[in-house]
């Protein structure tokens, strides 16, 4: 036995580890914990006694066999089902102190109470404690013999299925089967299968109480073959003497029991226990790893989305209305002529003739509107992003294991919309100035080319070719306007504007990231961290072939 083995085992068998595993809703039950504890006993104590248990259906004669071995009525016998309520054990009086010490150290049946009855009357046992009978039979030195409650009745299941939970402790299991249960599914499917997982030596006693006629040879053979199919190491047919009260069984059966008990050894069971722990630990580890993967994937998805979600709007002019954009000259491509046309249009529109002018944008008034727009924009964008995250979270397989709804908490970031609106408006103002300066330059350029052409046309061509210079002016204006538009995108004011919008978006994003991080902490913990000591113990035991 190495020190590290015991450390891992005690962590697995310990209350804290069991609690954690149950809280995480891993499929880890008390029977696994019991098998870990049994392993600890086998590993830590060289002098661990061999455990022999009588198991079986209700009223099948477990206590009768137990009593027959000890030669007196130790365990209470009655004709009614579910008479024995908790484990009753028989130990040699010289072994008793050692076994009690093991129990006190938490190595043997942890959580059970050691009860020695002073009265001579038969014991019934009780849930949660071990009733001890000390004998002086040297044949059973180094052995602990258990008389267990039945495992078929509803009452014993309601009382915590003691027999099933203590299965990992037993080195030898003697299954007592009454005639009515010779082919019982509860005994032969459930019990035999469970017992085989923990590797005790399995023996079957077929009880025969009703019919005194001896079985014929083929019938006996059939029973023996039946016992062999469930992996029993030996079987016998025992005939109970009829009569009332305590009666020892026949000597032949008693001798058989003696042989089975004296040949008991922990070897096979040790290996089976290790195998069992390996497979259980491997399953838990695998599940933990897959849950961790699910969790990581969820985090990756959300974080990937977080980056995208706020950026997915282009960084240009989203916050401007249509009017503002056309005012800034981005809505049309005839920039140099636009001013002229606008002037004419405004005048004409007064008479209600076609082509009304672009409205002048009252930027002062627009600040309030802009603030309102920002407020709405923030709300919509934030809501959109959080809804997406909520959807990702609730659809993640990671949370499939939790029965209740998981909801993230989100708080709209506090943003001073007025201040942002003022800042953005400042940029727009500066931008507008730049735009009009550029427009004037463009106009001048167009005029300086266009006017001489027009003059020349009127003077020398008599106005006949008026379309030629006009077309030239329009073309010049078109390209000039294009150039200016392009220039505009590179203007410092525009860059400032972009930077402001970007920092506004960063504000939302940072708030989202912060809130997601606190929400992530609040998600139910369904997996162990990879450096968790309990997980380390599980991983230690999940590797097959560890001795």
């Amino acid at each position, binding site marked *: 036995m190495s020190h590290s083995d015991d450390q891992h085992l005690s962590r697995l068998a310990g209350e804290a580890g069991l609690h954690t595993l149950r809280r995480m809703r891993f499929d880890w039950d008390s029977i696994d914990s019991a098998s870990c504890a049994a392993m600890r006993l086998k590993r830590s104590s060289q002098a661990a006694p061999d455990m022999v248990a009588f198991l079986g*259906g*209700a*009223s099948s004669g477990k206590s009768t066999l137990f009593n027959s071995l000890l030669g007196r009525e130790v365990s209470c016998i*009655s*004709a*009614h*089902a*579910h008479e024995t309520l908790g484990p009753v054990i028989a130990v040699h009086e010289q072994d008793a102190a050692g076994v009690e010490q093991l129990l006190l150290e938490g190595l043997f049946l942890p959580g059970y109470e050691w009860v020695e009855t002073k009265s001579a009357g038969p014991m019934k046992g009780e849930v949660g404690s071990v009733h001890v009978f000390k004998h002086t039979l040297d044949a059973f030195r180094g052995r602990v013999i258990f008389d267990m409650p039945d495992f*078929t*009745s*509803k*009452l014993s*299941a309601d009382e915590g299925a003691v027999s099933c939970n203590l299965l990992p402790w037993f080195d030898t299991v003697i299954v007592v089967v*009454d*005639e*009515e*249960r*010779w*082919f*019982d*599914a*509860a005994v032969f*499917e459930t019990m035999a299968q469970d017992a085989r997982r923990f590797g005790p030596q399995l023996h079957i006693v077929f009880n025969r109480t*009703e019919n005194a006629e001896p*079985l014929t040879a083929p*019938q006996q053979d*059939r029973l023996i073959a039946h016992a062999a199919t469930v992996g029993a190491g030996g079987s016998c047919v025992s005939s109970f003497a*009829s*009569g*009332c*009260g305590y009666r020892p069984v026949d000597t032949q059966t008693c001798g058989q029991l003696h042989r089975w008990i004296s040949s008991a050894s922990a070897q096979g069971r040790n290996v089976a226990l290790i195998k069992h722990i390996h497979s259980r630990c491997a399953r838990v580890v695998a599940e933990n790893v897959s849950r961790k993967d699910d969790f990581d994937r969820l985090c990756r998805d959300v974080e990937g989305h977080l980056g995208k979600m706020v950026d997915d*709007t282009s960084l240009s002019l*989203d*916050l401007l209305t*249509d009017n503002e954009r*056309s005012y800034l000259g981005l*809505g*049309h491509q*005839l920039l140099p002529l636009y001013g002229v046309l606008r002037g004419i249009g405004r005048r004409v529109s007064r*008479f*209600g003739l*076609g*082509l*009304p002018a672009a409205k002048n944008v009252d930027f002062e008034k627009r600040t309030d509107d802009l603030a*309102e*727009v920002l407020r*709405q*924009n923030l*709300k*919509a*964008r934030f*809501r*959109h992003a959080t*809804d*997406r995250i*909520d*959807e990702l979270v*609730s*659809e993640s397989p990671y949370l499939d294991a939790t029965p209740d*709804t998981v909801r993230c908490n989100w708080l709209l970031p506090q943003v001073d919309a007025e201040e942002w609106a003022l800042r953005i408006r400042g940029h727009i103002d500066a931008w507008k100035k730049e735009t009009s300066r550029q427009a004037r330059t463009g106009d001048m350029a167009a005029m300086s080319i266009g006017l001489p052409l027009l003059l020349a046309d009127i003077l020398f061509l008599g106005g006949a070719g008026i379309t030629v210079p006009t077309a030239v002016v329009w073309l010049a204006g078109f390209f000039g306007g294009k150039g200016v538009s392009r220039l505009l995108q590179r203007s410092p004011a525009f860059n400032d504007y972009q930077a402001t919008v970007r920092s506004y978006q960063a504000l939302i994003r940072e708030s989202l990231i912060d809130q997601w991080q606190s929400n992530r902490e609040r998600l139910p913990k369904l997996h162990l961290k990879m450096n968790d000591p309990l997980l380390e113990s599980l991983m230690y035991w999940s590797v097959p072939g560890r001795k």
Partner: protein
Amino acid sequence: MRDERNNAESRLQIVSENLAEITGQEPLELAEGGSRSLQDRLWVWGIVGGKNVGKSTLINALAGSDVVDRGEDVGEGTTQPEVYLASEDFQSVRNRFAELPSVPIGYHEDAPASMRGLALVDLPDFDSLFTDHVETVRAIASRLDGIIWVTTPKKVGDLRAINEVRRVLKARTNFAYVVNKMDWLLAQTSQDPVVELRRAADALQTQITECDGSHAADRSFMIAARYPSADTMAGAIRESRKESTAAPDGTMKAAVDQLIRDFGRLRQTLTTAPTAEVAETNKLANLDFQVRAQAEQIRGHYHPEILAEKLQRATDEDAVYELIRQHFSQDYCARLVENLNSGRELFAEWSSQLFRQRIAHWPLLGWIAWPVMAAGGAIAGLRTALPSLQRDRCGDLFRLDGIDLAQRVDGLLVGFRARLARVRRHMNIEITEAADLENRFRRDVMVLADRQRSAVIAPYLSKKPGIVGRALRGILPLAVLLWFPLVQPVLAMVGELSLTEAAGGLIHALSGSNVLSGLAVSLLILSGLVAGVYSRVVRDTAAALETLQSIAAEGVSESLQETLAGTVTASARRLLARLEDLCQELKHFERSSPDAHAP
């Protein structure tokens, strides 16, 4: 009443299939055949129990002879149902058990004529390794009317048995519980036998309570079927006790007598056919119980209420409206319609519409205004033809807060999906496509804006001049047209010339230059009239535009939000309605059946 119950089975099946489809779960398998028992006048008892508890012994004891083979001691025992019946009933029993897949049934028609209308069925065990036995028991159980549940002192309270009883859907009054092999208990005990019997009775009661929650002393029997008489039983017990610690004969006799009495009671129950009314009542009670239990099973399997409640919560009106308001705020909707309506083209559109309509009232003026209208039409044509002059309306119009309509719709759907996510994990709810919702919203907005616009302009368009106005409009242009070139020159001549000179003067007065200049003046005045009409039109158009802008857009946003909510939640609400109908039906089944009657 009978018909309704007959239908109940198939209706429950349909409910279950519907729920399976809605929830996407595996359909629940429901036992069928319960209504079959209503078609005959038989009463069929089934004897059910674990292996080796003496079911066959019991039926042999009731018959008084070995009708059923007890089978060998070591092995499967009874493998197929064996029916003990009077030969007259053979056909109806055959019909009762018809169409049971792969279950061969043995018939023993040697029951006395007093047992007419009764059948006892000996069934295989349910708790052994031979799993086809339990399949057989489960398959046949729904065709039985009453169940005799046999156990032994050793097997009383077995978990497996209790679970199996709970699977059998019969009215609890049609169950009888029997503990066989009580002689074994009496032979084993060293206590007072009567006290031991009472303890065994208590254990049996505990089991019955576990099985169906009732306390039925009159339906529980403790017997020893192997021994038909008190003497043989007492003798056997004495023999196996070896009389070493025998209890006083008196108490043992009392105990044995009690067992024999119980057996008599059981024989009475099992071999007396109930009257037709009682049988009918009990069969109906069975069916009612089955329907109720299956309704509960369905409820427990699919949890329709929980799903409905979740769905209800997900599609809760307030929350959905809250969600819609987040993405389509009142302000947004109002501004959207306002922007759609306040376009500059609207001025041109309305003014030309009004102008065309007004000018038609005036004869001649239409001809004069024609060049203006043609020019207007040309400009309008040019505007539509030249993309650079055309404002991109639809692309930008819906994007007021810097968020595309598509993004808005997406946000709304994502929000709704997140609400549904917990429910949807189990259910298959289809939500509207984003593109559909977007188009619908666009259309709604356009329709609303159109409706608003036409409501505003309609009174102006329908304005008609009165009689005087019509007369004036009819006469004035013609008068003006004729006055200056024709009448006025003539009138000017009248004072100066005599009648004899009139002809020559008339010709002079109507000479080319006079007519032409008069015509010019007339045209000028008529143009003035056109301008006047146009200025009125402009005034009216401006007034209409002002009205349009002053219209409060409150109703607009509400109706838009309403259609959005309707579209988004439509399929979920349909599903919810279906689910609620099914819940109602289940509740109806659970409630409608009256409580089982006592036999």
